[in-house]
């Protein structure tokens, strides 16, 4: 098993912390994992993305060549990164911000109104965690239960006050798919 997922969106949408959360959760399940942020001159106020690779063996290359999953938090990412996906890959997007136009025929797509769901929870900033909840449900890469258990470790002492709202966000996303 070796699964690559790319998270992408605007700089301010918490794209990188979404990826890191997934990576840490996978690590705490003793999986092999790499997290690779994109960087570069072109990032200046533009889009951000990162790639999380999860495997049960050594990971050869951490870069997102033909990822299995793309999670797109905004419109430009939706367009740009669906092309990277391997045939049969899965494109999950924030349907609150993304209009799912012109999609490749050989991939699966699913929208989830994560900004909306986050707003319902009272904090649009956890929109990224909502979508991560949904992603976990879809990908089955890690266990939500363990994630919730390990969450204090994952957030770290500085962000413990966000524990509850994050938990709710994960569950909201997870449950949205269930429904």
């Amino acid at each position, binding site marked *: 098993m070796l699964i690559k997922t790319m998270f992408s969106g605007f700089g301010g949408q918490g794209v990188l912390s979404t990826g890191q959360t997934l990576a840490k959760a996978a690590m705490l399940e003793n999986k092999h994992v790499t997290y690779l942020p994109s960087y570069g*001159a*072109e990032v*200046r*106020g*533009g889009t951000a993305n990162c790639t999380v690779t999860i495997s049960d063996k050594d990971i050869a290359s951490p870069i997102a060549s033909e990822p299995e999953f793309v999670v797109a938090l905004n419109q430009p990412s939706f367009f740009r990164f669906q092309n990277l996906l391997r045939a049969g890959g899965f494109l999950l997007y924030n349907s609150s911000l993304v209009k799912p136009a012109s999609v490749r025929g050989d991939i699966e797509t699913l929208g989830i109104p994560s900004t909306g769901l986050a707003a319902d929870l009272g904090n649009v900033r956890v929109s990224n965690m909502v979508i991560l909840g949904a992603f976990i449900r879809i990908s089955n890469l890690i266990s939500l239960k363990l994630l919730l258990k390990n969450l204090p470790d994952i957030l770290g002492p500085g962000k413990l006050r966000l524990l509850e709202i994050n938990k709710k966000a994960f569950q909201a996303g997870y449950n949205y798919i269930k429904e």
Partner: protein
Amino acid sequence: MKKVYSRPKSLKKVPMHYCPGCGHSIIHRLIAELLDEMSLRETAICVPPAGCAVLAYNYLDIDMVEAPHGRATAVATGIKRVRPDNMVFSYQGDGDLAAIGTAETLHTANRGELISVIFVNNAIYGMTGGQMAPTTLAGQITTTSPSGRNTKTEGPPIRVCELLSTLENTTYLERVAVNSPANIKKTKKAIKKAFQHQQKKTGFSLVEILSSCPTNWKMDPLKSCRWIDEIMVKEFPLGVIKEVKC
């Protein structure tokens, strides 16, 4: 209705890579306007730096050569000595000009090279992600001064214009800002003056421009304009620091 303002010809019609509200973008436009107004497009040669403005060549439609980080004035010296009739200017950030390029800046100024320097002081290393610059303010938090710049061990911010003003062959040094309409107008005038000094071969000219970096200051653009007014100009007073008759 008459068109009273439109994009200067010397500014290529492409979106810039700068962050929202970044001062570099405004300064680029002012330079382009002057290239048009002073008919300099065909003689200008610009030396952009390593820094957020490294891609300036994508925007300004004039001859350009990229310098290694900090060495723009040395490169400009080489060009100007070979082509004394061209309008040669460098465009440099505070890290570029006042840290790694300190020696080149000081000696180019001291030799009185007939070039103009557009010096963008945003009190931070923009391109590399917000490290402390030689012009970072006392107490300012950056990614490499996590508890704020300690002037006792890291030194106070360097005032480039004041430092260079002690050198005989510097003939025009002004500090301006691009945080308000009035200041932007002054900035344009100052750059024009610098170019004129070069044309009249009076000596070395430099315009220091206080410029916002909302991203690394971690402020929204408007707040950063205010920060320049309220905080930054206290350390870096605006105005002509030195001018000899042109």
